[in-house]
């Protein structure tokens, strides 16, 4: 009897005798796939896994939170490492730093603060305050020249 590796090899790459390869039976292989997208059902499948992992009314496990903590630590190390190489990135440095900060911000808010698991109303409340803060932030920066027209007010 063939060993498991040989069996898997045969299953994946040998013909079944009817001139057909034994391809895995997935939704996208059927004539009218139920969840067809640009990559078959890969998108809906991935979304389903993500939903099962982070939602469906369940509380995440300590292991899950630890993984999130490790990801945050890696992003922080990446930030500091990129900072030491900032001269090499030129104009891309600031956008890169902001992207990493946004990623950390979203991860903490979504998972540690449970907005991913909670009712959407809470996300709406926080997002409205946050977007209002961003609006104030942008307005203040846009009138920067008017509020600080000359260095005479300094120090």
């Amino acid at each position, binding site marked *: 009897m063939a060993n498991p590796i040989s069996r898997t090899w045969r299953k994946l790459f040998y013909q079944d005798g009817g001139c057909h390869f034994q391809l895995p039976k997935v939704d996208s292989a059927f004539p009218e796939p139920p969840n067809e997208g640009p990559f078959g059902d890969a998108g809906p499948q991935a979304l389903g896994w993500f939903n099962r992992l982070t939602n469906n009314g369940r509380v995440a496990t*300590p292991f899950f*939170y*630890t993984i999130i903590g490790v990801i945050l630590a890696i992003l922080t190390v990446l930030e500091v490492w990129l900072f*030491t190489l900032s001269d090499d990135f030129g104009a891309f440095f600031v956008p890169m730093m902001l992207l990493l*900060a946004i990623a*950390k911000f979203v991860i903490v808010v979504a998972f540690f603060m449970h907005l991913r698991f909670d009712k959407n109303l809470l996300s709406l409340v926080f997002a409205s305050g946050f977007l209002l803060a961003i609006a104030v932030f942008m307005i203040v920066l846009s009138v920067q020249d008017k509020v*600080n027209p000359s260095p005479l007010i300094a120090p």
Partner: protein
Amino acid sequence: MAQAAVTQNQHGHIADTNTGISNRKLLMWVFLASDCLFFGSFIATYLVYRNESLVGPYPNEVLNIPVTSVSTFVLLMSSLAMVLALNYAQKDRAGLARFWLLAVAALGLVFLGFQVVEFMTFVDEGLTIHQNLFGTTFFILTGFHGLHVFVGVLWLLGMAFAHFKGALTSRSTEDLEMAGLYWHFVDIVWIVIFTVIYLIGFSDGEGIETISHATAIIGG
């Protein structure tokens, strides 16, 4: 006639409200949303007066990125400890919940220690709150953040010693959740401060003059 809906959220709490969310939790989120405006204004003010100081010390002369990176890491890990404390409290594992809660408070105190040392170093180097625009905006922003951390530490220590003396109840778990939301918010504010003020703002010097980040770190 509006009828209060009794729903069960994902943590197993029963919220007897129209929204299905505990009123205290909703209020906490409204407070955090308003706190975004508070810190957003200070960060915007810092950026408006960025590179406007006429006298030193300037950011590239005083900011210590390696040390601040460590304190940032400490605060980040305190967030992990906080979520673990809440997770164990929700599972009625009072011992583990208390352990992680005390770990959060300890990490918060370590972060505050880093900040006190940083402030004292800055003052030794001549940077005070009235020395220049950088000093004013920097101390106001990071000082208020430090004050938030201090309040959080007091809150957590109070919870550890008062609420967790006896058996865990759903009420104390919700209290812990409120404290956790506050603590994580303090963490995300620091994520923004660390990136904008320390990493991006490190190159700020006299006027619009900038120096190489890497050269300054290496000391070349």
